[in-house]
C-alpha cells in the first residue's frame, strides 16, 4: 500500500477499536460481540491480500494485528480476516462464499500428524474452519459446540474435518503459511503487551502513595523500564520477521518468525506481569482490564507454537515440527 493508504486503513481500525473495545469482562456478551464483528467485517480488511498482487504486505498486516491487540476487542481479526484468507490465497482457492477461520489442535498448537481433535480458533463471524495438516492438505472443518478457553476475548469451538481436501500447499507454501501465521499472532500479542505497559506507565505517573507519585520510586521505574525493553524486543522481532516473510526465502522467513514467536511468548507475558504489579490490587479484580490482557497473552503464548516447541527447533535447524 502507499504510505497514506496504510495510514488510512490503520486509522480506520484504530477508530473501530476505540469504539468497540470492552471496558471490562462484564461487557463481553454475545450481542455486542456480533455487532462488533459485523462492523469489523464491514471494513473489508479480509480482501487486503486477496488479489493476484496482494495490496497489503505481510508487514502491513502484522502492524494491523498489532493495532488490534492494543485494546481489549472480542473481534476476530486474526482468524477470519488475516489467517484464513491468506491460506485460501496460497491455495489459489479464493471465491468461497463461506467465511472461514483456522482450525488448530485441541491445545491450539499447529495440528500434529494423524487425525487430531480440532478447534476452530478465533471464530467470531466464521461459518467454517480450514484445517491444514502436516502434509499440507487443507480440508474444510465443520464448527461444533463452543470450547472453553481462558482467553475471554476469543471464541474457540470444536471442529471436525469434512470431505475431500480443498487443495494442497507445497513445502514452500507451507513454510510461508506457518511464518505468516506465527508473525500475525505474535504481532497481536506485542500490541497487547505494549499497550498494557503504556497504561501502567500512565497509572504510575498519577497514582500517589506515601505522599508521592509511585512512578518516582526507582523500584517501580526499573520494573517499567524492563517491561519497555521486553516490548521493544518483541516489536523489533515481529516486524523484522514480517518483513522477512515479504522479502526472504520461505525457510529464512520461517526461522525469523519462529524466533519472533519465541521472544514474544516470554516477553509479552513478562511485560504484562510487570504492568499488573504496578497497578497493584486494582489489577486483581474482575472489573479491571488487566486480566483480559493477561489471559490474551497467556493463551496466545501457547497458540501455534509454544516456547518448548520453538527453542529446541531453533537450536538445531534440522529439527522441524
Amino acid at each position: 500500500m502507499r504510505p497514506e493508504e496504510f495510514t488510512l486503513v490503520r486509522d480506520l481500525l484504530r477508530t473501530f477499536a476505540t469504539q468497540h473495545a470492552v471496558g471490562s469482562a462484564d461487557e463481553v456478551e454475545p450481542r455486542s460481540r456480533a455487532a462488533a464483528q459485523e462492523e469489523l467485517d464491514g471494513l473489508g480488511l479480509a480482501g487486503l491480500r486477496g488479489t493476484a498482487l496482494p495490496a497489503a504486505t505481510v508487514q502491513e498486516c502484522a502492524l494491523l494485528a498489532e493495532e488490534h491487540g492494543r485494546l481489549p476487542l472480542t473481534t476476530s481479526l486474526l482468524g477470519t480476516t488475516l489467517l484464513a484468507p491468506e491460506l485460501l490465497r496460497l491455495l489459489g482457492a479464493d471465491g468461497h462464499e463461506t467465511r472461514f477461520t483456522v482450525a488448530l489442535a485441541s491445545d491450539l498448537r499447529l495440528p500434529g500428524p494423524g487425525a487430531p481433535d480440532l478447534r476452530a480458533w478465533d471464530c467470531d463471524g466464521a461459518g467454517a474452519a480450514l484445517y491444514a495438516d502436516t502434509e499440507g492438505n487443507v480440508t474444510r472443518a465443520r464448527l461444533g459446540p463452543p470450547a472453553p478457553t481462558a482467553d475471554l476475548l476469543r471464541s474457540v469451538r470444536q471442529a471436525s474435518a469434512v470431505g475431500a481436501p480443498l487443495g494442497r500447499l507445497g513445502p514452500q507454501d507451507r513454510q510461508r503459511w506457518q511464518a505468516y501465521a506465527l508473525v500475525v499472532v505474535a504481532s497481536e500479542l506485542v500490541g497487547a503487551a505494549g499497550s498494557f505497559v503504556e497504561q501502567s506507565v500512565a497509572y504510575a505517573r498519577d497514582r500517589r502513595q506515601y505522599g508521592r507519585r509511585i512512578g518516582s520510586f526507582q523500584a517501580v521505574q526499573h520494573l517499567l523500564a524492563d517491561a519497555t525493553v521486553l516490548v521493544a524486543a518483541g516489536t523489533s522481532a515481529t516486524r523484522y520477521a514480517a518483513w522477512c516473510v515479504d522479502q526472504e526465502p520461505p525457510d529464512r522467513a520461517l526461522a525469523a518468525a519462529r524466533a519472533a514467536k519465541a521472544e514474544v511468548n516470554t516477553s509479552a507475558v513478562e511485560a504484562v506481569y510487570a504492568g499488573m504489579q504496578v497497578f497493584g490490587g486494582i489489577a486483581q479484580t474482575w472489573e479491571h482490564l488487566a486480566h483480559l490482557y493477561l489471559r490474551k497473552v497467556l493463551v496466545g503464548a501457547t497458540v501455534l507454537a509454544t516456547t518448548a516447541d520453538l527453542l529446541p527447533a531453533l537450536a538445531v535447524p534440522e529439527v522441524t515440527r
Partner: protein
Amino acid sequence: MTEGPLDFGDPADLERLRRDFRAWLAGHPLPARRPDEPVPAFLHRWHRILHSGGWVGLDVPREYGGRGLTPLHQVAVSDELGARGAPGVPRIGYLAHALLEFGDEEQRRRLLPRMLSGDDVWCQGFSEPGAGSDLAGMSTRAERRQDGGYLVNGQKLWTSYAQYSDLCLLLARTGRTASAHTSISAFAVPLDRPGVTVRPLRAASGDAEFCELFLDDVRVEESERVGAEGDGWPLAMTTVSYERNALDTGHLSKYGLLVERLRRTAYDRRGNLPDGLLTRIGQCVVDYQVLVAHARRRTAQRLAGQAAGPDSSVDKLLMTRAEQRLYETALSVFPEELHAEGGEVFGDYLYSRAASVYGGTSQIQRNIIAKRLLGLPADDRA
C-alpha cells in the same frame, strides 16, 4: 505512537560493496599475529591494512578521509569480517562521530583522516575513579591560563588501550556551576604532552586493556578544545549513545559466529547434550535474532532521519542480555574452557560480565529509560 512499515532490507548498492570487499579480502588475508606482538599492536596493523583498501570510515564524509557512504555500509564491512572470524574494523566510529558533530572544520580536517588511517590512535578519557556511571560527578578540571589555553589536572580511569594511544578525547570541568550540562568541556589531548602519565591496569581476564591516566598541570591549547566550552556533556551523550548500539560497536557479527558454533555443536552432539542445554542454545538463537532485528530496525529508523537518543539505553540492555546469556551458555556447552589455560570463550565470558557495567551500568540505563523515555516523575514529595 506506532510507526509505519519500515524497510529492513539493504540498499541495492550494498551487495556490490560486499562483493567488492570479499574480493579485496581474498587478496589481503588476515595476517598472523607475531609471537611477541601484543594484541593491540596486531589489531593496529590490521587497521592499517583495512584502511589501505578504503574499508575504514565508510560513513565519514570524503573531505575528512572517509567514503561518504551510510552507516549501513560500515556495518556490512564489519559483518563480512565477523563472518570470517577476522577482527572487526577498529572501534573508532563513536569517536569519529563526536568530532564530526562537535569539532570545528580545522579539527575535522586535521584529526579525522589521521584517525581513520591509524596514524593517530585514540582513546577515550571520560570515566574517573569517582565518576563512573555518574559521569556528571567528574572532578578533572581545565583551568583557564593567563596566557590563553588551559591547565588540566585530574585522573581518568578505564581508558582502554591508552598505553598504545597517541591522542585522548578528554572530558574536564571548565565551569564553576554544579550543573554537568553546562560546565564540562571536551579536549583532544596528545598523550606525549608533559604531565600525562599512563598506567595500565590488569582486568579480571588478565589482559591489560584498561588504563589509569594521570594529568598533572597538563597544558592544553584553546585550539585543542572540541566544541564550545560546556559542550562536553552533549558530546559525551552522543558518543555513548553510538557506543551502546551493537551495530556501531560491531559486536553483532561476533555473537553470530558463536551462536552458529553452538548450533553446530548441538547438532554434532545430538542426544548427548545435558538436560536443558538444547533449550538454552535455542534461547541464544532467539536473543541473537532479536538483536539482529532490533539493530536493523534502529538502522532503518536512523536512515529515515531519527537521531540516536535515550532509546539507545533500550539497545544497550538488549545487547547486554544477549551477550551475557550467550557466553554463560557457551561455558556450559564447552565446560573444558574452565579447566584450560587462556581459553578464548572463557576470556570473552569474563568480558561479557562487564557488559552490564561499561558505557553506563544496566541500572543507569533503566533510570534513563524511566525518566527520558517513559517520562516517569522525580521524587515530588512536598
